[in-house]
């Protein structure tokens, strides 16, 4: 998809539903028009970025890369891969919605 396409695009109701499904969000029929309107307003605003020619500009995920602070790709800067104590299981399970004390319990996984 080229940038001109994005600039001219608007999100359709079907796309709103598809993205909601990807995001595990369930929109009610009366939420959909408002979300569609807001997304289009925001995307129209965001399209300003396309005024810029960014050919050859490196992408930046976080500032450490720019300041050469990000970890070496060789892995030399990484901490030793050693077993350490983590948060106590009982403390974690105490705040879980449903548990048998060892595992998190969830409803049926396979729908048939």
């Amino acid at each position, binding site marked *: 998809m080229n940038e001109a396409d994005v600039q001219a695009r608007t999100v359709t109701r079907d*796309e709103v539903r598809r*993205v909601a499904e990807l*995001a595990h969000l369930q929109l009610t029929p009366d939420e959909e028009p408002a979300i569609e309107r807001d997304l289009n307003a925001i995307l129209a605003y965001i399209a300003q970025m396309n005024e810029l020619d960014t050919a050859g500009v*490196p992408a930046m995920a976080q*500032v450490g890369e720019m300041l050469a602070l990000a970890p070496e790709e060789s892995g030399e800067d990484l901490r030793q891969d050693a077993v350490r104590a983590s948060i106590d299981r009982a403390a974690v399970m105490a705040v*879980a919605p449903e548990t048998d004390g060892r595992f998190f319990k969830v409803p049926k996984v396979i729908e048939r």
Partner: protein
Amino acid sequence: METGLDGTNLEGLTIAEARSAVADGRISATALVEQHYERITAVDGPSGQGINSYLALSRERALAQAARIDSMVAAGETLPPLAGVPVAIKDVLAMQGAPATAGSKILAGYRPPYDATAVRKLEAAGAVLLGKLNCDEFAMGSSNENSAYGPVRNPRALDRVPGGSSGGSAAAVAADLCVASLGTDTGGSVRQPAAFCGVVGVLPTYGRVSRYGLIAFASSLDRVGPLTKTVEDAAILLEVLAGEDPCDATSSDRPVGSYLSGLNQSIAGLRVGVPAEYFGDGLDPEIRAAVERAIEGLRAAGCAIHPVTLPHTRYAIPTYYVLATAEASSNLSRFDGVRFGLRAESATTLSSMFRETRDEGFGPEVKRRILLGTYALSSGYYDAYYRKAQQVRTLLTQDFLKAFAEVDVLVGPMTPTPPFKLGEKTDDPVAMYLADIYSVAASLAGLPAISVPCSETAAGLPIGVQIMGRHFDEATMLRVAAAVEQQRKLQQSTAQ
């Protein structure tokens, strides 16, 4: 404090004053905590009438810590830097045993089993943790109207917003409901509410303060920062909070400076950059005049004023809303009803449990941002939105690096307008996003920045000036901020 502390003179109480009052035995740490709780009871609630800055009080933990400090005082032990100082925590930071809602229904009732590093460091330095502060849901908002627990009101004008997302953190400090607080800033969320409430707010360099225990919104942007009544207090807190943390791989191992000791050094000879793009259309004339006066004050103190240009500034908000929402859509996928927080009870299958939990738990702005971020990352749009925004982020950062080759700090307005009225912008997301127009660029570039009160509008609303520093040069930024604060005090005393 001249007359010893009682319930009425918490007004303007600073860290240094609180600590010395406790250390000298003029007040016990326990009594100081109780005075704060009395004041909170009197002016903070309930939602819809009071300020509504606190979501939970951690009375037991606060009183235990206060008792510990009081016994240290009694034993004549050397006291830590924040001994007995009452501090409160934005509700997106984990504090063991206390609720952590992140302003969302989806985390109602959740009590994290651990402390955020910033919280642990404060307590280790002697601070007394009063409770958890209201904020926009998952720190997404510029007005604190997106909290599932009701909006916060601006203590300086109760019909106006305190800013967001750390609205509770700014309002609680402004209303003397704590001596200082922690906020978090992803696109302006410490600095903008600080400006709106007339307090000091610091965004440290990305990597300076550990993010461990911060409920993630956008990990490449999220930062923890202090809100305080004075620049000196901000320097004291930053010294405690800064430093490497093995629990946050992006935290920096650079040595932490002594922010406090440099604070009153002369600023003569410093080069102050004034970015033209921060004084364009849409800037309120009273704010423009106040910031220009502050810059003139810096010139009078011996700074060299340099006009500079940051040509990509106008792309900062579009870039921010692509990157922040993309990261949020990924980070917030963990809220699914499996391990903690809300679970929709009616669901009979795993996939319907995910959907129903998230539908019940998330508010409209959070859903909007998750959907935008999911869209920007989805197949076919990744290059056009996410990758493009990462490239523009490089250009924005290069603007700053070029400017900082010639100047030591950048100075400009913090917000385009004074605090607006509750409800004024809630129906127009783009108008709300523009409230962050001067704050998001420093966020994207990882720079440190501070908001300092510099004046008031004719109607008495606070005005903040923003000072941005070089990466990891918080010391110079704080020194200039202290000079701005000092000039304001002089103006106020000559006006009387």
